């Protein structure tokens, strides 16, 4: 193996190091402060299990729906001459910059029981969205799906379109081009966008509490459980935060094993 020449100015180590400290120190402090002796009892309580279970289920459902809706949206935005596509892209990613609580209020303004669509659902089907698991998923979708759309759209925009056109010219049907040429060419962006969306969904708090509310086993996700616990049992809250970090790291590591070849193109 040949030694590679260093191509970067060394001084960049300083800001890079500060960045690493910014991310790592709070997590290290969290882990150091957490009452590990109570881990067993905290993990086995019904409240913790319900919250972890609800967070996993809702965030995975959200990720699935985000793929079904978000991939077509990104394809439409990147591969068609849709009028106003820039505006559509801006609107569809606006929720990323909204304070989550405002996102929750916005959802209530459409789907609340007295809001335009919410009222119709209530009148016609007797269905009320707030305070349900569906509301948790909708809140997560609203704030998390843009991560998939924006990641995929920019990768599609940067990808070479030659192979697609060639495949089409050689007679491949659109579905086949999509499945065998277009999507494989942006596989790493698809994976990264999916993971980002899931991570944002499982950490969602503000929009969920505002739109969906808080009820154990129905709408109380792990972030809400942690926030409430902070009011009167900070130690347990810290442990819950560590559990959240562990769950997310666990899923990411599992995914990495599965997807590393896809992301790095076979490099270890």
């Amino acid at each position: 193996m040949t030694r590679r020449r260093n191509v970067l100015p060394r001084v960049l180590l300083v800001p890079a190091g500060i960045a690493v400290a910014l991310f790592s120190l709070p997590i290290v402090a969290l882990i150091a402060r957490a009452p590990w002796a109570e881990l067993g009892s905290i993990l086995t309580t019904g409240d913790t299990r319900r919250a972890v279970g609800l967070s996993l289920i809702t965030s995975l459902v959200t990720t699935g729906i985000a793929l079904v809706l978000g991939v077509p949206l990104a394809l439409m935005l990147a591969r068609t001459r849709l009028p106003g596509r820039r505006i559509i892209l801006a609107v569809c990613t606006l929720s990323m910059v909204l304070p989550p609580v405002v996102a929750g209020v916005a959802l209530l303004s459409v789907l609340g029981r007295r809001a335009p669509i919410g009222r119709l659902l209530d009148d016609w089907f007797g269905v009320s969205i707030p305070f349900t698991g569906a509301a948790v998923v909708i809140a997560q979708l609203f704030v998390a799906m843009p991560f998939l759309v924006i990641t995929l759209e920019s990768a599609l925009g940067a990808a070479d379109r030659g192979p697609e056109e060639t495949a089409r010219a050689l007679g491949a049907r659109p579905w086949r081009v999509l499945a065998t040429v277009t999507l494989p060419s942006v596989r790493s962006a698809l994976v990264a966008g999916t993971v980002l969306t899931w991570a944002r969904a499982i950490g969602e708090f503000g929009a969920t509490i505002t739109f969906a509310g808080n009820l154990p086993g129905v709408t109380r996700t792990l972030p809400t459980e942690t926030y409430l616990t902070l009011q009167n049992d900070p130690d347990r809250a810290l442990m819950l935060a560590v559990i959240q970090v562990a769950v997310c790291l666990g899923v990411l590591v599992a995914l990495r094993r599965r997807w590393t070849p896809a992301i790095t193109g076979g490099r270890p």
Partner: protein
Amino acid sequence: MRWIRQPVVGSIVITMLAFVTPGCGSDTQRLNVFAAASLGPVMADVEQEFEAANPEVDVVVNLAGSSTLAAQIVAGADAAVFASANVAQMDVVRDGLGLGAATVFATNALVIVVAPGNPLGIAGADDLARPDVVVALAAPEVPAGDYALQMLGRAGVEVAPSTLELDVRAVVTRVALGDADAGIAYLTDVVGRADVAAVPVPDDQQVLVEYPVLAIDPSTGGPFVEMLTSEIGRAILRDAGFGTP
């Protein structure tokens, strides 16, 4: 993450204020009043009255949740007066700083919050158990939720709430927006609001909600506490819906 962040933010803000506000002149004395968030409108009025009577004093009111304020004061924040929304957080400060007894200067009562005109005809706690009534309560982890559970216990009613909100204001918002039919909140949360109505809770189900105040620094804070507990302060409190002992 309010618990972790706010003491830090609060102390930064206080430090900055300490540099900024002495612009009023070196003969102006600063008086820091730490008050529970629900006392905001009351404290603004008392501040005005106090500064009118004591032009040499500049009152600065720091509003936050009582537990946050108590933590800041115990950690050494420069508070001359602490007005808490519950006795427990006042005890945190008294125990932490070794101070004497506090004075209860205001009381609050629970009410059942309903839509204007009370379309579902909710007459009392019993109706909160009706299957057609969507109920929002504060979570038992916050004081208002704890009080609500005590009240329902006294009424002997089992309620299945649709949501347990993180603070009592959110309960009122749920009813105001119409996503909940009823909730339990403080009387002072609904006084003067047109978008919700209140159904009173009978005395035998009512819960005693007390607001204690203490001059942490008796020489500077004492006069402010005196005004708060004087007839001037009591009139302001009553206008806002509080009871005065």
